[in-house]
């Protein structure tokens, strides 16, 4: 009843021209939104189609074979899959304490003022630095440090490898993990915190027992965003991971990632099976990212309901 009335009113209030504009606007945004879906579907489809020769030739062995030999045309993706997952999760592990500390510090301790906005801007600037610059920095600063460390440990002192790649990745993803965390922590209602204080809780207790649990889902979302970034990062990683198509056997071992092998070999890959196998790695990266995103969504839902 009410609905009917208001729509009648709308008809009187808005002229025909207005309504036409309204519907045109609606159609435009619908189309733009649909375009993204179509784009997603076509990317997926073209990846599947172009990796078909490789799927046909290697089947499931593509996922567990560790040989990548463009000369004998034998291709397996395990070294790259492992390399990507290892560096990404390691980077996440390293970045977690730092990003959490930054978000608590800016979101809870220094919400206003010069220091806070300075810190906030600096972390956000980190996200804006092109990855090739990170790569260079890692090559000139991080690699010698890691190499010295390796020399002391007595392992082959290449300086480049899984550890170096994870370290530079962790620096790159800090702003992603920190920014959402900060927003959510700042959004924790004041009355809840005040209630906790009123019960005699210290500031540390308020943060660990009230603020962080309340902001859990937001923090998780930030971490996921950071993980997504780490999985797909190419340039900086390829400069310091060592690009060896072997199964990494230790933290200091050189390795390779999915994104990096594609960037390295695609331009000069001439054989059909080589190109197709690189495409299948692209497909695999696409799937891994999608799976981690879906899992992440599930986790966010789970923790936010509990909160």
């Amino acid at each position, binding site marked *: 009843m009410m609905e009917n009335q208001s729509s009648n009113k709308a008809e009187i209030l808005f002229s025909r021209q207005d309504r036409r504009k309204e519907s045109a606007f609606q159609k435009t945004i619908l189309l733009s939104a649909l375009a993204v879906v179509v784009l997603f579907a076509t990317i997926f489809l073209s990846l599947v189609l172009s990796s078909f020769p490789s799927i046909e030739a290697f089947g499931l062995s593509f996922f567990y074979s560790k040989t990548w030999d*463009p*000369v004998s045309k034998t291709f397996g993706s395990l070294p790259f899959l492992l390399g990507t997952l290892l560096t990404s999760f390691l980077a996440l592990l390293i970045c977690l304490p730092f990003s959490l500390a930054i978000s608590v510090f800016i979101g809870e301790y220094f919400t206003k003022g010069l220091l806070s906005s300075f810190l906030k801007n600096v972390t956000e600037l980190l996200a804006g630095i092109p990855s090739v610059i990170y790569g260079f920095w890692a090559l000139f600063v991080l690699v010698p440090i890691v190499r010295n460390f390796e020399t002391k440990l007595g392992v082959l002192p290449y*300086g*480049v490898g899984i550890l170096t790649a994870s370290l530079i990745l962790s620096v790159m993803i800090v702003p992603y993990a920190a920014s959402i965390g900060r927003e959510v922590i700042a959004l924790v209602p004041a009355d809840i915190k005040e209630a906790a204080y009123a019960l005699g809780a210290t500031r540390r207790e308020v943060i660990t027992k009230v603020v962080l649990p309340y902001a859990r889902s937001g923090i998780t979302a930030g971490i996921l965003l950071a993980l997504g970034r780490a999985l797909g990062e190419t340039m900086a990683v390829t400069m310091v991971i060592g690009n060896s*198509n072997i199964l990494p056997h230790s933290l200091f071992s*050189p390795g390779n990632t999915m994104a990096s092998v594609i960037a*390295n070999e695609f*331009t*000069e890959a001439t054989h059909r099976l*080589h190109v197709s196998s690189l495409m299948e790695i692209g497909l695999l990266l696409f799937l891994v990212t999608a799976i981690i995103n879906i899992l992440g969504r599930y986790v966010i839902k789970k923790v936010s309901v509990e909160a």
Partner: protein
Amino acid sequence: MFHAQSRARTVDLLGGGATFPYPLYSKMFYVYWKATGIKVNYQPIGSGGGQRQIITRTVDFGGSDAFMSDDALAKAPAEILHIPTCLGAVVVTYHLPGRPELKFTRSLIADIFLGKITRWNDKRIGEINPDIKLPEMDILVVHRSDGSGTTFVFTDYLSKVNEEWDTRVGRGKAVNWPTGVGAKGNPGVTGLIKHLPGAIGYVELGYALLERMPVALLQNRAGRFIRPNSASTSVAANIPLPVDTRISLTDTLSPDGYPVSSFTWILAYKEQAYRKRSMEKAKELAKLLWWMTHEGQQYAESLYYAPLPDEAVRKAEELIKSISYDGKPILE
């Protein structure tokens, strides 16, 4: 009247392919444009791209560091000529205290890249470098991570001089390296070697000279240790060449030739009347190729490339003269 008109209209030539000769081609095409008013646009998209684009006829000429295989040539719609334009060499470079000048025998270098020799003070290195005090350091192998003609030439050489390399690894633009780490491009490999004491790797001759890296003397088939430079690279091609110039020069028979040398080629169709191409364009292409293999050669050495030896120039002349338009030779 007609003559004046056709002169005023500029003919642009479009080429694409190998990145290796790009600095030389840029120089050559600039000088050529100044002298003749003919613009040549060359896109350094890689040898693979050069071969693909000449097959699909999207360019007037392609560039390639590797000659086209018989399979690839069979895919082309008509006969493709390989015109050699200059030579390049791949050198072994390293990072050792005191920058000693090392010598390597034919099989030794392969054994290092196979990961069978892992220390610099290995006695097999010491035996042929008796005057050099070799450090007690690990050998860190650095190779290219991207697919590359440089890798092809180097692994082609290793395959010829070492049987185990041939069966275990083989030759290719990208191979399954038994040991070491990869870096992208000549700059990446050079950069990594400079940062890693004990590293050994391979780069293009020009790059090593430009970056003042130490380079190793390699033993050729005649048993001589050859220092890589423009002259020793040119000499590597001073051997009887096949008519189509499709030959691998690695491990050359030439007694004074550097053993890891290679031609780089321009790829063009023998019959130029295709896809409504004008006679004028065909003629300009043939003239350009003639110029590049003759007057253009003077720019090679200052850019660290090796000019074509006489034998190769003669072969190139025959090939360019065979270029035709509607069956008639273009250059008389």
